[in-house]
Every structure is written in C-alpha cells, then in structure tokens.
C-alpha cells in the first residue's frame, strides 16, 4: 500500500510537518516494497485553497492512506471523496509513524479544522 506523509525535509527520520496544505514535501512510501519517494507540494505558495490542491497532488500520486497530525475541512472533503484513509500522526519521525501504522497502532483522523485561509497555522 502506498501512503503519503507531509514533511519539512526529505528524510524519513525527520518529524512529520504539522501542516498539510503548506508542507514542503510529501513522502510517498510503499509499505510493500519499502520504497520512499518525495514529491514537492505544488500548493506551497498558493494564495488560497492550498489544502485542496495538495490533496489533489497526493491522490494523483496514487496513495491509499495519509498520515498527518491535522487537516482542514476542504482537504478532508477531497480525501473522503477519493476514499483515502486518514491516520492521525503520533509525535515523532515519519519512520516511527510508519512502524506504528504497520503495527496497526495509529488511530484514524476524524476531526478537521475549518482551515487557516492565509492566516498561517503554526
């Protein structure tokens, strides 16, 4: 299964990025082959609707699940339409979270914020 994780650095050992729409990269990880690949976030400098555009890019990368700490309403709607499973990230590296996912220790992300809409969210 291919999964996506928002990242600030292109390293599986670094922490997951706290925001989704404005993450620098997305790690695309294949849990079957252990292959890791990074795609740039096309929505990084979008003036609005970043979550929507980022979600589109992640879905286009062919993932079935996303691990992330939080998500806005619009992006969540895109993922739900795409039938993408959303897991709530635990504190720590992407690698740590992938291990937790493999052990079925991650819970689903079910609550979404209304978006920051240009006001930042850090």
């Amino acid at each position: 299964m291919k999964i996506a994780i928002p990242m600030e650095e292109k390293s599986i050992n670094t922490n997951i990025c706290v925001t989704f729409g404005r993450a620098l990269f997305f790690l695309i990880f294949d849990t079957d082959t252990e292959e890791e690949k990074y795609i740039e976030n096309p929505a990084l400098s979008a003036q609005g609707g970043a979550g929507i555009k980022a979600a589109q890019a992640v879905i286009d990368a062919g993932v079935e699940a996303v691990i992330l700490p939080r998500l806005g309403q619009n992006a969540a709607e895109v993922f739900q339409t795409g039938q993408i499973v959303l897991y709530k990230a635990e504190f720590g590296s992407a690698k740590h979270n992938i291990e937790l996912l493999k052990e079925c220790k991650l819970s689903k992300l079910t609550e979404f914020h209304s978006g920051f809409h240009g006001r930042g969210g850090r």
Partner: protein
Amino acid sequence: MNIAVLSGKGGTGKTFVSCNLASAIEKSAYIDCDVEEPNGHLFFKPTDVCSQKVCVKIPQILADRCNHCRKCVDFCHFNALAFIKEEPMLFRGVCHSCGGCKIVCPNQAVVEKDYSIGEIRTGKHRSIIVKTGIMNIGEESGVPIIRELIKNLPCKNNIIDCPPGSACTVMESIKEADYCVIVAEPSIFGVHNFQMVYKLVKILKKPFGIVINKVNDLNNPMQELCEKLQLPVLEQIPFACEIAAQNAAGNLVYETNQKAKEIFERLYAKISEVVK
C-alpha cells in the same frame, strides 16, 4: 458627494455617525456596507422596503461534455476545483467567480450558474433612502454585495457605512468615496486601531477627517496623536449618558437630541467646506 465612514475596529460608532450624518443632509442616502452585520436599519426603521438578491456566478461542470482534461483544475488560481475519481469537485467558498474555468475548457463543459450570497434591501426613512447589504450566514466574502451597493449610489449625497477594519471589504466600500470620516475612540487602543485605517486612506489617497467619539474628561491619546501629526479632527462627540441612552434605544439622536443635532449639522458643514 459620497462620504464613507470607517474605523479600525467595531463599536467605535461608525453606524452612529453615519445614520445621524445622513439625517443631517438633505437629499441623502444611507448605504450600509457592513454586510456581515448591518444595523443602520435599526435606527431608520425604513418603510416601503423592497429586496433584491445578490448573486455570484459559480461553475457547473457538465459530465457528458467533460473529457477529464483537468484544464479547469490546473487553471484555477484559487484552487476551488479538484478532480477526484473521475469526478469534478467544486469548493464554492473558495471560488472567486472569475469565470476562468469556463474560458479554458476546450469542450464547453463548464457553464456558469447564479448562486445567491445575500440581498440588498432598499427602503425609506422620511426623505432618506436607506440601502442595506445583507450577506447570507455562512458565506465567505461580502465583497460582491458591497460592489453592487456602491455601483448605483442613489442620491446626490451618499453616506457609506463601512465594515470595521481595513480589509478588502473596506477597500471596496470606500472605492467611490470623495471623503472618508474615520471614527476613533479616545484611548490607546483607539489610536492603534485608527492607525490601520489611516494607513489605508493614505494609500488610497482619500481626503479624510477624524471624529473622536465617546470623549470623556480623561486622557485623550487620539487627540494628542492628531495634534502631533496635524490631522484634521472634525468633531469630538462627548461620552454623554443621554446621547448613549437614546442611541441604545434605537433612536436617531439627530431627531431626539438638540445637542447631537448641532454636532451632526456642524460635521456636515465642515465636510462640505473641504469637498466641493
């Protein structure tokens, strides 16, 4: 003459000044651009009210003509469109009604339809025309309603009651203004909020004057700032119990209070001296 009344924050007395200033002018109209919470009508209690819907265009993608090329999705700078599981998705709140998706579609699969975001109510109070912009709850931007309000200003003299702050709704509201009245409170907080709007009117090169509202016997840092920067203070309205009480009861103090009547007549006289 179009006079816009604005302030850096809510509650300084924009509506109080606008309504009573409009009352002091013959052949005037009061235009409530504070579309998120318009309340000037509470003072005017307009009669003969008619309502007109305000619509924006939103795209509708016709499935039988769409060949999934995604040109519309890629074009949209606001990212209001997505294409998931071979189906287009529209995020209406993000759409700015620019119509670009319709233009770039090679298959004429995008059509535009009207979507109502609010209304404009027009009524009368004595000889004053009262126009109120009302945005529907849940909508994201009142700018299209404000644009419609100021497109056809009805009278020789129009008083435009702006939304609070200095954001795009305010910029839209003062677009047609010949003069801006900035209402500010005599406090440090008032000074801070004033400076945001002051910056805006300077950038837009609008002539302006200041009304300091709710003035008491204590310090008046707003007046001090105006003296320091040599800014024109048009009026200082006292923090008087009877004016506050009459206003809070929903009365136009111009009609019920002789002192207030004089204040607003003087205010109009001063503005008309500057704007000819």
